[in-house]
């Protein structure tokens, strides 16, 4: 006899709990109860008091016994016992390898198709009543079905499986399968794996399959050369030039000659031929010009005309961003003094104009291309410019209220909390003359003397900075703080111009990024598609901090660290480094065809009926049914009296 729904341990545990609960309820029901009554004059003890006193604990043992037996019979019916036959179902877990490598082509076809075929054959060999759980395994372990006795559902799920873009994590899948079998009460069957079992070297060394493991391994000896890594960054010296670092891997067994090409549109930007040793990597660097934004395609082509088994990793696409250029117009009658400060940055296009050529209509247009307007000791006619404005030594009439003009002003303090004063430090700097401004609630002081602020910034409605002195004056001309202050102002007003990009082609799955020393981890942000934040962790170690995040599907991930934006184009499929060599003790291939199943006799309906009858009997004999049955007997007798019975004689 065996149980279909409950294990013996579960049945005994539940039976114990139910029995204990019944006894507790029974004793609670029979405990003496306190009642407050109006008078005691009518109360007389029951004639059965002596009997109750003798068995004070369990006053009606047969009632209790009948209840317990009936409940156990019902529980037994729920357990689903079968008697006779060779019906003994086992729970099997079928793990289907859907990692990226399963999309590889061999002479026999695509690996995943072979794995599906093996899995379906395995399913056919199992007894028809054995429940099977299908699990798709790549970087994640995903159960597709529960333990399903209808094998056609499992077969349909196998047929609908596709290769993913991530590598196989076999240990995780095996742990999941063992845990799932452990949670079931029925006997555990096999854990079968159908796939190429291409995993990382570390995992291959430590992988410990369970004793009930069966391997349906698909041979995968295809030759493959593909991208391992591609990194790009803009050249520091020339904004329209990119530097690229490429790494090519050879997963095959022979050395390969490959041609590496970088293409934008129909233009080949760079090309190089490499020889990659089997099981090794080969790298190369490129430098090419791409002034506009665009899609960069990086290809690996076989130079020796050999077929590549896994073409998915032969091509990488990176979306290169455009370099932002800021336009600066300086209205000054002394442009030569300001030219070194504003014309030194390659990403700023600066034009110098005399103050007389100021056109208020053009500058009042918010859609004008100008990013920053510099007004050197000059008040333009209204309306004032709608762009970001740097006011140098503004005369009265500017948006900034001047409190006083201080001669021989000593610059006492830079406000370090302001981004405009970042890195600025001067000592005993005395200005021949400086205007002291009055701060409003929108203003932020950047530098001040003893009389008040002489450099202030205003963030709304447009960004404005007022310098109360001439930065190219005699006292400031040779100070290092002067170009730094102007650079800080330009960075604050046009932050996109200072943004730097690094492009990386990465594989789907877990990605680790080593962080530079001094990185403020609190400011780090990792965003995925549609600017959605991705969870990440930072691992601290003696070698330095490492940021980890997981990208389960192809896409683009941004790692933002201040002005630095590292873009990960997660488009490369992740492939395990080696095919797992299973121990010799592991069962391989398809199992023997199972014997036909005879289901035996199903006992649960009889047990359910018996349990119900037991409860009904208890209710009639000991419960309120006694009153009803007595009343019904009385009523029946009364009706019988009314019937004009005739004597038989």
């Amino acid at each position, binding site marked *: 006899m065996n149980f279909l729904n409950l294990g013996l341990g579960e049945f005994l545990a539940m039976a114990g709990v139910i029995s204990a609960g019944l006894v507790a309820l029974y004793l609670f029901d029979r405990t003496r109860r*306190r009642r407050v*009554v109006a*008078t005691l*004059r009518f109360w007389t003890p*029951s*004639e059965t008091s002596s009997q109750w006193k003798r068995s004070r604990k369990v006053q009606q043992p047969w009632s209790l016994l009948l209840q317990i037996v009936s409940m156990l019979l019902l529980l037994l019916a729920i357990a689903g016992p079968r008697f006779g036959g060779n019906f003994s179902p086992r729970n099997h877990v079928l793990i289907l390898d859907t990692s990226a490598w399963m999309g590889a082509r061999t002479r026999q076809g695509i690996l995943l198709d072979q794995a599906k075929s093996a899995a379906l054959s395995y399913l056919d060999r199992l007894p028809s009543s054995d429940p099977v759980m299908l699990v798709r395994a790549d970087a994640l372990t995903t159960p597709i079905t529960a333990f399903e006795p209808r094998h056609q559902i499992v077969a349909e799920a196998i047929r609908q499986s596709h290769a993913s873009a991530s590598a196989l994590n076999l240990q995780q899948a095996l742990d999941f399968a063992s845990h799932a079998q452990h949670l079931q009460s029925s006997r555990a069957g096999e854990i079968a794996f159908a796939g190429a079992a291409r995993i990382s070297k570390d995992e291959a060394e430590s992988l410990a399959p369970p004793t009930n493991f069966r391997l349906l391994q698909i041979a995968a000896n295809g030759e493959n050369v593909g991208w391992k890594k591609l990194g790009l960054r803009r050249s520091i010296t020339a904004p329209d030039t990119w530097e690229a670092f490429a790494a090519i891997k050879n997963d095959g067994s022979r050395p390969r000659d490959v041609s590496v090409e970088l293409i934008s549109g129909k233009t080949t930007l760079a090309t190089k031929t490499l020889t990659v040793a089997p099981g090794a990597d080969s790298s190369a660097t490129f430098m090419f010009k791409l002034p506009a934004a665009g899609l960069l395609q990086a290809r690996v082509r076989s130079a020796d005309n050999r077929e590549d088994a896994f073409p998915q990793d032969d091509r990488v696409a990176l979306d290169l961003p455009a370099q932002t250029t800021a336009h600066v117009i300086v209205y000054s009658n002394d442009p030569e003094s300001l030219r070194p400060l504003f014309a030194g940055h390659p990403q700023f296009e600066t034009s110098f104009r005399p103050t007389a050529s100021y056109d208020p209509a053009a500058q009042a247009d918010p859609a004008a291309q100008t990013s920053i307007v510099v007004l050197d000791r000059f008040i333009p006619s209204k309306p004032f410019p709608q762009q970001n404005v740097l006011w140098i030594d503004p005369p009265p009439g500017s948006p900034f209220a001047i409190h006083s003009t201080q001669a021989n002003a000593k610059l006492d303090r830079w406000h370090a909390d302001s981004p405009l004063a970042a890195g600025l430090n001067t000592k005993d700097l005395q200005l021949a003359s400086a205007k002291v401004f009055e701060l409003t609630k929108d203003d932020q002081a950047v530098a001040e003397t003893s009389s008040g602020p002489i450099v202030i910034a205003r963030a709304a409605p447009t960004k404005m900075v007022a310098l109360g002195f001439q930065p190219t004056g005699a006292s400031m001309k040779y100070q290092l703080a002067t170009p730094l202050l102007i650079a800080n102002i330009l960075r604050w007003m046009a932050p996109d111009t200072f943004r730097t990009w690094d492009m990386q082609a990465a594989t789907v799955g877990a990605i680790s990024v080593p962080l530079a020393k001094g990185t403020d981890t609190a400011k780090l942000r990792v965003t995925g598609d549609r600017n959605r934040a991705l969870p990440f962790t930072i691992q601290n170690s003696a070698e330095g901090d490492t940021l980890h995040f997981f990208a389960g599907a192809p896409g683009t991930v941004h790692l933002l660290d201040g002005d630095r934006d590292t873009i990960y184009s997660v488009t490369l499929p992740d492939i395990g480094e080696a095919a797992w060599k299973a121990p010799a003790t592991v069962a391989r291939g398809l199992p023997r065809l199972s014997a036909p199943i005879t289901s035996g006799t199903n006992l649960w309906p009889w047990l359910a009926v018996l349990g119900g009858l037991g409860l009904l009997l208890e209710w009639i004999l000991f419960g309120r049914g006694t009153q009803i049955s007595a009343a019904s007997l009385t009523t029946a007798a009364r009706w019988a009296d009314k019937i004009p019975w005739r004597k038989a004689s």
Partner: protein
Amino acid sequence: MPDRPDRARPEKAIIDNALLERLERLAIHWQKSLPGLVGGHNASRFTGSGQEFLDHRQFHHGDDVRDVNWRAYLRLEKLFMKMFQLEPRIPVRIMIDTSKSMMTGGEKGPSKFDYARKLAASLCYVGLVRLESICLNPFSATLGDPLVVSGGRNRIQSAVRFLTSLTASGSTDFLSVVRQFVSRYPQRGVTFVISDFLDDADCEKPLQYLADFGHEIILIQVWSDSDREPPWDGELELEDAETGRVVQLPFGEDVRGSYTAAFDQYSAKLRTVALRNGGRYVGLSTSVAVEDAIFGPLLRSGAVQ
């Protein structure tokens, strides 16, 4: 138009306007001929300045000559006095049991105490509508402070407030209560006693004592279903609500019937006391709505008509 009590919104917890409207058509009725001032609605054997001729009698010195039947004198040359039937106004007194036993047995439905208060308020309103003078007397071990209301239906509010303010406490001592009652109220009248009459001492003797003093007693026994037929089985620890005495005993189906029979026998004794003295007895279960009780058993008993 007089101010009706439903507009004055008496306490909703005790009595509602729908019941009050139905009660308007009722009147308290008594059987005994009781002396009293003119203005009642029940006939009395006592003669007085009524409208309906009752009898003749011989003239005696001191009689009012206005009542001499001069026609008879001219024919017979004898002085006869005309006597008229009196319809006196007599005091109606309602005694309400406020002992702790009235709070027992209220698991399903209202407690006996709430039921008695609602019944008393209803009877009070019936009396007020007929311009009776109603005296509400709470009692437990002693007779409590009374409230006398008269002057029509508008005074029901004060009666309801008085009844609402009552609390159930203490034990019942009918003998002491009746002694205080007869000494406090020498004028005979109709006396409603609303109680469960469930005290350890025998209350038949005090009730007889009350009737002997000429009061017309109308006993309204209120019980809960668990008072008459306890639904419990097994080992019970019973506590007397008034005395606090505790008794442990087994109880079951075999003695439930005898318990109910004893209770009914006790109620029958109360009925006998009431009927023997020209009064009435009504037994009411709290499972019966007050409205149904008034227009059912109470009306049939003749206490109200």
